[in-house]
Each structure stands twice: as C-alpha cells, then as structure tokens.
C-alpha cells in the first residue's frame, strides 16, 4: 500500500478512505514505531512549504476518482434506497452460542456505528419468540375484549382512519446486558448493549380504542396484549400507563410502516417498559381485573435474587447509559482529539445529566446532551477528550429527571447478586491500552 510512502502530513487515510489490512496489522504489531514514523513524517511535512508537497500529493486528490470522471446512476436505480456498500459492516448480528434456534433468538443493533438517537429501521434489534412472519395487513385484525361494554374488532382500515400520533421512544429488551451480570462475556457494545433501539412510532393511543369500546376503567386495572405469531405472546400492562395516553397501538416506524421483524402491521408501544411488553403483530387486547401470569411473566423475564426468589412483573427499564465510541473491540488510530459519544435513557422519564469519567470513575465531567432530550427516548451525549496515549478507563453515568443515578456494578450486585439475567443497568467500562485497543472490562 502506498500509504507508508507518500504520507505527506499527519497520519491520514488511504485513498480508499480506510486503512489496509497491512496497516492495521502494523498498528497492532508495533503501535509505537508505527506512531513514531507517522509523527516523524508529520513533522517533516509540517515544515515543508505547501508547494513542495504538490508534486507528490495525496493520490485521492492527484488521481481523479471514477465518481468524478464518469456518469453516475439514474434516479430510482434502487426504488427502495439502500446504504452504501462501504457500510456493510454495520448490520444486525447474533451472539454465537447465546441461543440455539434462530426462531427464538435475538439479533443486536450495531450501536458502535450509529449516530444521533434514531435507529434505522433495518438495524433495529430483533427478538422473536417463535419466528417472524410478514403478516398480510388486509387480513390482520385487532380484537378488544374482556371488561368492555362492546367487544370489538378493528381492521387496519379502521386504525389508520383514527387520529394518529407520532412519538420518539426507546425500546430495550429486559435482558439487554444480561450476559454481563457476573463477568465480562462479550467484546463489543453491539453485543453488550445492542438490544436497544429508538424510533419515531406512529399510531393510536390505546386509551382512545378502549374508550371507543367503553372499557371499565374502574374494575379493569390490567390489560393483556397478545400477538398474532405462533407463540401468540402475551404480557400484562397496567391500566395506569394506558390512562396516561403513552401506550400506543402503532403501525408506523420512522415514517414508514413497521418492518415485519418489528411487528408489521401492528405492535404495542409501551414507553419506558422492557421490549417484551411491546407485543408485535398485535391481535388482541383484553381488559381484566388481575394480571395474567403469562409464560414471559412467570418463567422468563423474572429476575432471580440472591435469596432464591424471583421478581415477577419487573417491567420498568431504569436509567442507563453507554459510551458507543470509543468502545470495546475498536482501536484508536492516533493520539489527539476524540469525541466521546454515547447514549443515555430512562424508563422513568427524561435524562437530566450524563457524566463521563476517563479514570475509571474517580473523577467525572459533565457531558453535553444533544437535542432533542425526550421522555423515555434515547438521548445522545458527547464530550471532548484528548487522548495522550496512556491507558485509560472510560465510563458514563446517567441521571434521570427523578434524580435516580445509574449504579456501579458493585452497587447493583450488592442488592441483586449476579444471577438476575434481566435489568442490568450498571455503569459500563471500556479500557483503552497504550496501543489504542479498547477492551470490555468491569469496575466495581
């Protein structure tokens, strides 16, 4: 690769805009000498007059690329647009060995490469209990029964005619970070925190539908949501959340219809509550006076405590944050300036503050919260940082509007032990060593 020979300034990108395999191996094999060479070259170039460099300039500049010297593709060449082929590394991925059958499994969103707060629909994490289907919307029905004056059927035609609302909310699986309760188990933020996504959902407040059916809000303090898939998954939702107007029967996601993997054509949106309650392919809502004790509230999604009891109906996702870059499995290319960036969220409301530590939690600095900061939505935070080449441990710590502060592993385990599986919201630590490699570590 020509990069080594014609490096005119500081460490810079290869013409194709990425380091070659050899370069990366060189970085890993002898970080120090690679860096030294780079800086020697840099200072040499800095001293040289601009004109002297022109003779041997950046080949990405000197040799005009094909996209500057030929005709591009016409409109609608791809009627449904796709990401650049250079972005194919950022896809949903499974964690090998986590589950043994793909129909009841999970794929993780590539948080390490995402910007802002909205998860592209095609990268939204997946969790299915008995496989996904592409449901025919013309044949989909929503039934509302139980403690209502009129048990009713709604078609998608009916639902799309009702007044729709659009709201941005995060969805996090209750088992997100579940593999890490006892010790570090996975290398990157995709696997440690990637059962997390955030979308703009469009739909109808469930309260409106229940009022249309004349629900008995006095006696009916619980609602059952049921899916149309093979597992016809069920979860109990408290009526308080529905009365608040937050719970939605949604058909839209990020401006288009829901994706099949996310419940097309209809799913429940339960802001602040773990993903399993956001029932996909929603076919039925029942109003009742007691919780249902469904499989996913009596066998799974129960949190084992140190005394051998399980917490049942634990649903709220408490405040949590994670630095998405630099993060586990990445390598910093050089010393100097970095933007530490990450996500924070709380099932109890808005994020009020995020603090970042670069010394493993001894000292903290306030991060910038980027707008919008919305209730029960992901919030993007950023903070300036200059890496001096020495080992560091990065952490982020969220506080929500109730004043609740994200706990350390030591604090969380002191109460809940290490076998809980669900609702791990501990502070995440990333260790950067001298070679710039970022690793997943745990700090009490």
């Amino acid at each position: 690769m020509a990069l080594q020979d014609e490096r005119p300034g500081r460490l810079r990108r290869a013409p194709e805009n990425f380091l070659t395999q050899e370069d990366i191996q060189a970085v890993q094999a002898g970080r120090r000498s690679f860096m030294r060479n780079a800086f020697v070259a840099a200072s040499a170039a800095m001293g040289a007059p601009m004109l002297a460099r022109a003779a041997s300039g950046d080949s990405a500049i000197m040799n005009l690329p094909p996209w500057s010297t030929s005709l591009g593709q016409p409109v609608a060449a791809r009627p449904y647009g796709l990401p650049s082929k250079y972005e194919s590394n950022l896809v949903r991925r499974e964690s090998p060995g986590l589950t043994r059958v793909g129909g009841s499994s999970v794929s993780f969103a590539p948080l390490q490469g995402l910007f802002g707060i909205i998860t592209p629909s095609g990268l939204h994490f997946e969790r299915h209990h008995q496989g996904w289907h592409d449901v025919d919307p013309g044949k989909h029905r929503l039934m509302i029964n139980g403690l209502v004056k009129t048990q009713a059927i709604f078609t998608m035609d009916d639902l799309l005619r009702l007044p729709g609302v659009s709201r941005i909310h995060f969805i996090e699986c209750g088992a997100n970070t579940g593999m890490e309760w006892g010790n570090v188990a996975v290398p990157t933020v995709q696997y440690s925190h990637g059962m997390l996504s955030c979308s703009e959902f469009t739909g109808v407040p469930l309260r409106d539908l229940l009022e249309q059916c004349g629900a008995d809000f006095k006696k009916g303090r619980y609602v059952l949501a049921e899916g149309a898939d093979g597992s016809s998954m069920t979860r109990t939702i408290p009526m308080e959340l529905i009365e608040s107007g937050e719970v939605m029967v949604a058909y839209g996601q990020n401006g288009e219809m829901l994706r099949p993997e996310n419940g097309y054509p209809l799913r429940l949106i339960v802001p602040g509550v773990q993903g399993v309650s956001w029932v996909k392919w929603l076919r039925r809502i029942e109003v009742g006076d007691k919780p249902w004790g469904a499989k996913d509230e009596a066998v799974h999604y129960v949190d084992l405590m140190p005394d051998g009891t399980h917490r049942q109906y634990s649903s709220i996702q408490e405040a949590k944050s994670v630095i998405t870059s630099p993060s586990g499995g990445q390598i910093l290319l050089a010393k100097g300036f970095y933007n530490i960036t990450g996500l924070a969220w709380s099932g109890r409301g808005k994020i009020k503050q995020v603090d970042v530590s670069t010394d493993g939690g001894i000292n903290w600095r306030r991060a910038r919260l980027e707008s919008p900061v919305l209730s029960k939505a992901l919030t993007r935070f950023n903070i300036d940082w200059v890496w001096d080449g020495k080992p560091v441990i990065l952490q982020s710590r969220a506080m929500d509007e109730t004043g609740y502060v994200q706990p350390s592993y030591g604090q969380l385990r002191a109460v809940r032990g290490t076998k809980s599986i669900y609702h791990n919201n501990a502070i995440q630590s990333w260790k950067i060593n001298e070679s710039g490699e970022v690793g997943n570590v745990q700090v009490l």
Partner: protein
Amino acid sequence: MSRFSKTVVAALLAGCALGAHALDRYPGLGRVATAEEVKAWDIDVRPDFVGLPKGSGSVDDGADIFENKCASCHGSFGESNEVFTPLVGGTTKEDVQTGRVKALVTGSFPQRTTFMKVPTISTLFDYIQRAMPWTAPKSLKPDEVYAVLAYLLNLAEVVPADFVLSDQNIRDVQNLMPNRNGMSTDHGMWPGRGMGNGGKPDVKNVACMKDCKTEVKLTSSLPEYAQDAHGNLADQNRLVGGVRGKQTVAPAEGDEKAIAGQPSTNAIATALATEKGCMACHGVANKIVGPSYQDVAAKYKGQDGAEARLVAKVKSGGQGVWGAIPMPAQSHVKDEEISKLVQWILSGAKAQ
C-alpha cells in the same frame, strides 16, 4: 379469560350493537365482535383459572403425545438442553412440600429449568395451548394439553404415574407446584399501583464528580480465548472515522472480501440456508432437530459421489441416517440452490 361471562356478554352485545353507547366515539370505526370470534381468539388462562377449558388427560396419554410432538426439541423426558433449556429437573419432593425450590438458593443445579421457576400451573397450560408444538402452535386440543401437562408434572415428581389431570383437580395440583411460593412483586419496577412498592428504586448511587474513590478495582475483562468468539471485529466497524475495529480473526484463505461490501461465499450460502428455512432444523455447528452442517461435512468428507447423494436427499427427503426424525422433501428450493448449499456444506460449512 371471561369465559364465565360469555353468555352475559353475548346478550349485552345484542343490545349494545344497536344502542347509543356502542363504538360511538369514532362513528363507523370498529365493529362488534361476535361471541364465536371472541371464543376463537380468547384462549388465555389466568392464574385464578379464568379461561380454563373443560377437559382431562392422563400421564400415559401425555407421554405418547410428548414423544411424537415434543421430544425432538425437549428430549423424551423434558430433560434435553440441546434446543431449549430443560423443562424438568432441579426440583425435589421437599420443594413440592414447601413451594420453594431450594436449588435456586444453593445454586446446586446447573440450569434453571421451567419447573424450577414457574409458580403457576395455569402458565404452563396457557403456553402449551397457545404456542406448542414449536412448528404447529395451537394444534393441540384441550384434552391433549391436559395430557402433556400431566406427563410433565409426573416427570417433575409432582403427580404419580397414574394421574389424570383435569379442570376439576388442577387447583389441587397448583398447591403442589415446586416454586409456587418463590415469586415476589415487592420491587419498584412495575409501572402501576396494583403491584410492587410504588416505584421506589432498590439501588442507589449519587452523582459524585471529584475524588469519588481512591482506587479503581478492575474485576473482569474479556479472556484471551474469547477475543474471536464473535468473529472478526474489524469487519463489524465502520471503515472511516477515528477508530477501526480490531482484527481478531485472520482472514481465511480464499475467503477475503474482494471489495468492502461484497459478501463471502460462506455468507451467501448461510443467507440462502436461512432464507429457505433450512436453519430451522440445522445449525452450522450445532444439532437442532437435524444434524449440524459441519457434522454432515465430516461424515461425507472425501466420499465419492457425496454431492449427488446429498442433493438427492435434500430434494426428496430422507430418514434414518441421523435418527428417526425424517427430513421432508425440500421441493421449494431450486436445483441450483440445492447444489450451491450442498457444495458449501461439503466444503466444511463455515459460517461467514
């Protein structure tokens, strides 16, 4: 639920459909559900047994149904850990007495089986009825659900071998469930007033900013042997920016990406196998219902005519080589696709 009130509701509906209160907030949207429609979908069974259908089934009948429809995933005795976590195991006679599973306290059993956790027998009835068997959910009749559940209860040593479970005695069996007293709702994570402690968090931290502790105690990091367990991290990060992914796997010979964004032959083959539904029964490296592709590759390695034989097997189905469960004919897969898949399998069936 609400099976009790079905007739009452039906009577009400007849009146409501014409009345002023029915579906009138948004005129013309939604229609009244018929009693038959509600009955067809409202199959849930609550812990207080509202919604439980009448019926009965014996341990013996359950054993037969289980062997035919459930054992391929769960093992003949509900003990298998191959596809799902075991259903049965880890509970004792003493647990049946106390209603608390001791192994959850001592950690003396390697897994947490279904019977170690489930407090309510209704949960099992409801779930078997709505979601099982795996590939044909909702196909069991109520008597068959009672029978399968009776068999599982017998395996868990909750009921004797000559037991017949029914809607009449299911409440008595509830009082024998090994973990019936093992659940708590005393926490702050239920977003309603009906259960829990009103939303009070159990873990407390403060937003200390300076000199918050004297030392950084590192308790865990990713072990060396696990560095490449999630594949090559260099291929899981963006190609530009201040960071790159770490090279954790040396690129396999002949499997290098020609250009970024071009999937490898292995990736194309696994995608095809997934799309055609092959992966529902075969894992790349693990047995599911059928053998893993890597096991198939090992078995036929170096054999003359293996490709043609395997192509024929995929096309018309087979049975006996890997056990009693037959593989159906895969007529929905095109010939050239079958060839491509078989070639990939025989080349060693690498995942990516």
